[in-house]
């Protein structure tokens, strides 16, 4: 959280889609941060402690894809909520960390905003519960 607003980290390698996602996050009233791959995302997560949600693509160049990144984040920063988007129509839910949400590309703006609200508002999805 920063000044009472949730902070959302957008991880997406395609610049135009990333731009769109940033606008989407901002128009939903959140603070947006951007990274073009998993390594950059991890650097940002290490550098600042106020990221509430990571919204990540799956297929990305670099050392980790979005699924690996999601698991890495859940492992290292358990409170950070996870929203994963991919061009694959179905990703096995079981391949994602518990409590994360998935959207198939191309996603509608409303769909993403609704899912971000659900993740950020839903206390049941907090890490304390998931770790049980």
């Amino acid at each position, binding site marked *: 959280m920063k000044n009472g607003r949730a902070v959302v980290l957008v991880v997406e390698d395609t610049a*135009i*889609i990333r*731009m769109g996602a940033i606008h989407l996050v901002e128009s939903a009233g959140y603070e947006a941060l951007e990274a073009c791959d998993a390594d950059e995302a991890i650097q940002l997560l290490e550098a600042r402690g106020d990221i509430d949600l990571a919204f990540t693509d799956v297929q990305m160049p670099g050392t980790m894809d979005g699924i690996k990144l999601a698991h890495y984040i859940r492992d290292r920063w358990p409170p950070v909520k996870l929203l994963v988007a*991919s*061009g*694959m*129509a179905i990703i096995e839910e079981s391949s994602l960390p518990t409590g994360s949400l998935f959207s198939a*590309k*191309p996603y509608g703006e*409303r769909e993403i905003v609704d899912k971000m609200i659900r993740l950020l508002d839903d206390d049941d999805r907090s890490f304390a519960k998931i770790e049980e």
Partner: protein
Amino acid sequence: MLKLASLLKATAAGSAQIEAYEIDLVRPNRRIRNLVVNACRLDDGDKDRIRILLAVTDVTDVRAEARIKDDLVREKAILLQEIQHRVANSLQIIASVLMQSARKVQSEEVRGHLHNAHHRVMSIAAVQKQLSTSPGGTVDISRYLTQLCDSLGASMIAEPERLSISVKADDASVTAKISVSLGLIVTELVINALKHAFPDQTTGAIKVAYDASGGDWTLSVTDDGIGMPTGSNAPKAGLGTGIVEALTRNLECDLETRGASPGTCVTIRHLGDIDHHEDIRPAA
């Protein structure tokens, strides 16, 4: 080889039978051959001279061919997945550009056009999503229209308690090509109804229906709004109307627009000897 020898002994004694026993034949300076051994005791009534019927088949080449075929099938699946992923990503780029443009423009009218373009792209994308999860290249029309109308409603209806869109469709699968046309027609008609049918009503409902029997099918979009203005009040036909008319012609359908008291009902009827259902021939 020791195991085979003991199995053969047991076969001769009548206590075992060898079925599809695999051995690798290893010889110096020669390639390993995969052999399949079958053996059974011949019961010819002669108890003193026991005979065994033994068959050895060299399956090395057949196995290699099967492996190549498996690799090709796997490669094809990976390529297909890669293409689907690329298509989805490209559609996402187009959708993102249209939404960003819509956010930037000042004119309300232009913004409306950009949003409509976005809806059209998303309606085609929904077909793509369905195709990538359904085998055989066909689209479950009920699931598709429901998903399409849900997403149109989510992005266009600000007060869901006031306006609703419902879908009632028969269980039918149609080809990708036809479902793209049906999706675009429904998109145009639903956008049109949401825009014009309910200027001041407290509530309104849009009903999308698809009925199929044999080669005949009917698609209808009905609203309970104010009905169509007539005479000099009738608006000029827009791009949406043009798209609906062109696609209807292409599908060899009749298009009928009538008052539904209250509201408007648009029906697209296909009476056909050509059965579009379950037709999975590749597009020419």
